[in-house]
């Protein structure tokens, strides 16, 4: 069979990038990537070629990442402080009105994700979130897990999760507006 070293050369960077953006630790990311290749080696006969090799390996990696997050969250469960103290008071005044309402976004979202510059801002904004908020958001929006599935991974209730997602989205949106869309408006002028 094809030398596994070529797998590492061909897919190593992409898998490592993906793992690192999820676990923020180079050693853990490296371990997950290695486990992914090992698992791929063992079950390569089951790879029927329906998707690309990269997609298949990424699928294995996603499962490994989820297992890792599950263990981590069992070890360090969400605290009440995290859930109740961090409010969104920076966005709304006492009567619940926007302090600064969302601006009109000019760019076309369908084209945005193709722009490397934007993606860097996007990932920077994501890394500005606490890991709890970022994990919840990424499990939902990048991995596409359901509420139930995420609750099992993070050891939280559905209500907790919706609070986390609401905060993640509010903060992320604000960061993107400040660091990208507002600057796009200035370019237009």
């Amino acid at each position, binding site marked *: 069979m094809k030398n596994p070293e070529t797998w590492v050369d061909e897919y190593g960077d992409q898998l490592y990038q993906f793992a690192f953006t999820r676990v923020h630790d180079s050693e853990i990311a490296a371990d997950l*990537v290695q486990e992914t290749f090992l698992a791929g080696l063992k079950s390569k006969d089951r790879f029927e070629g329906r998707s690309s090799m990269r997609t298949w390996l990424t699928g294995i990696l996603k499962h490994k990442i989820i297992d890792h997050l599950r263990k981590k969250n069992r070890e360090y469960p969400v605290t009440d402080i995290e859930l109740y103290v961090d409010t*969104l008071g920076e966005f709304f005044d006492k009567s619940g009105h926007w302090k600064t309402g969302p601006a009109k976004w000019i760019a076309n979202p369908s084209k945005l994700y193709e722009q490397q510059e934007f993606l*860097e801002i996007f990932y920077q904004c994501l890394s500005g979130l606490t890991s709890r908020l970022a994990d919840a958001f990424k499990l939902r929006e990048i991995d596409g897990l359901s509420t139930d599935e995420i609750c099992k991974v993070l050891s939280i209730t559905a209500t907790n999760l919706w609070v986390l997602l609401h905060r993640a989205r509010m903060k992320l949106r604000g960061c993107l507006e400040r660091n990208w869309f507002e600057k796009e408006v200035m370019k237009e002028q």
Partner: protein
Amino acid sequence: MMLSCEEISRLVSDSMDRKLPLAQRFAVWIHLIMCKFCSRYRKQLADIREIARKSSDLRQSAIKLPPEIRDRIKRNLQNSLKDLH
């Protein structure tokens, strides 16, 4: 009962993960018609969802597998390959 923008923003987010009860869906709908900020917010959350979903497929050039780690993984794979046969 009129809901504030803060409450509406919470419901808009929730609606992305679960089906809101009819009364809440209606309250949100009415508010969005009248409030351009919350209307933009809803659209922007949908945009972010689309971006997040597609972005993971694309390469991020900055992060690379460090060479020592690359070599270590290759060695470990070779060893495992021997064990498998």
